[in-house]
């Protein structure tokens, strides 16, 4: 078994029009910029994939990464908790023009819905959003005198993630706060593709240090010097 891929283009080749795609990262930390840009490049060459539903905490910043996907018109819907950023123009303009749908989810609920999707739990109850606009239309049940909102799992066709080390079996480590949603998303997607800063041999990652076991990972691609979204934005970068 060897989950290494040869190219970024191969890593994003199978994602179809209309797919639901989880993208790791919280703001720029953990954002798989090279995978996203490879997906944009494929769209610009072939017109696909389009009509995507993207699941991420945010909705892009500046003109790179998810913001660039939105700017290119590849995204039909965002499922996120915080579609604002230092430079939210790409999302804001399409949202206000009615060209992109938004499903706003409290951040902890978003995380737990993804976790539930990966864990085979179709629904759960949370106190978050009880009595607010974000609970409208959702079943509410009382447990031990307190109200809870029922939330459904979230699953995806693909997850595009960034990790630090990845071995050929797909075992992953992350770097600092770049971990955020990625271990959850790895479990909740039918196909999980990860860009790793360094691809290593099985055994090089201490089993005590594995954060995402390889079972959740379908493919890894080494990107040795990954771009950092925050630094791209500070440099005024734009993709393409």
């Amino acid at each position, binding site marked *: 078994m060897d989950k290494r891929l040869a190219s970024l283009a191969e890593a994003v080749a199978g994602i179809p029009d209309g797919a639901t795609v989880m993208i790791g990262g919280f703001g720029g930390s953990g954002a798989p910029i090279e995978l996203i840009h490879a997906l944009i490049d494929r769209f610009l060459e072939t017109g696909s994939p389009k009509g995507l539903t993207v699941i991420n905490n945010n909705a892009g910043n500046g003109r790179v990464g998810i913001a660039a996907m939105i700017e290119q018109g590849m995204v039909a819907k965002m499922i996120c908790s915080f579609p604002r950023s230092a430079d939210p123009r790409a999302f804001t303009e399409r949202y206000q023009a009615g060209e992109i749908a938004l499903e706003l989810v409290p951040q902890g609920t978003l995380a737990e819905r993804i976790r539930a999707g990966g864990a085979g739990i179709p629904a759960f109850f949370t106190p978050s959003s009880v009595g*607010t*606009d974000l609970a409208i239309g959702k079943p509410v049940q009382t447990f031990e005198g307190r109200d809870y909102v029922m939330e459904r799992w979230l699953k995806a066709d693909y997850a595009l993630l960034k990790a630090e080390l990845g071995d050929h079996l797909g075992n992953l480590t992350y770097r600092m706060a770049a971990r955020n949603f990625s271990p959850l998303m790895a479990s909740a997607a039918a196909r999980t593709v990860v860009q790793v800063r360094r691809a290593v041999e099985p055994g090089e990652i201490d089993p005590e240090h594995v954060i995402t076991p390889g079972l959740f990972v379908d493919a890894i691609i080494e990107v040795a010097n990954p771009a950092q979204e925050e630094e791209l934005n500070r440099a005024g970068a734009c993709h393409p």
Partner: protein
Amino acid sequence: MTDKLTNAQIAWRAAQDIADGAYVNLGIGFPEMVARFQPPGRQAVFHTENGVLGFGEAPTAGDEDWDLINAGKKAITLKPGTAFFHHADSFAMVRGGHLDVAILGAYEVAETGDLANWSTGPKDVPAVGGAMDLVHGAKRVAVITDHVTRKGQPKLVERCTLPLTGVGCVTRIYTSLAVIDIEAGRFILREMLPALSIDALQNVTGAKLHVTDPVGDLICPEV
């Protein structure tokens, strides 16, 4: 009304109520200032929703590592004892009742403890982040805020008019003029600026202020 506390002074006052060893989440922006004013001899452990516990202060400009940020996407630093974890664990800490205090900003707080702090109405791009989780998780949910809006309208009201973040969740409010607890659906005045009268404070408060015990002087150093 001539005088009021600065944001830094409100944050200072809120910090005085945080016990040594408390696990604390500070909301994005103004509430983050609370971390600067821990009383000597006390050390709280700060939690940030994106998956870091026990982090240090902001790095100097140029030393940022953008994989090491807080929920406001500002750079933070490591210090001995820092821990990283994924988002489901982070919100297990929040919803599971493991945080001692969450301190948030507010557009409006009602005497019922209802909080509105995420949406100013349908014209806005709505963004909620972790606020709806935090208000139902921490053992104590406090608000720090100016006492009135920029237009001078009360932020402490009988019922919120803006979309709610949570129902009946706030227990203490630190404002630019006063410290007010919420108990059994009532605002209980605990402290106010010494130069202020209860009538003057009531005039800029949108719901009845109750006095059940002697009202303390709200005195903050220049910070």
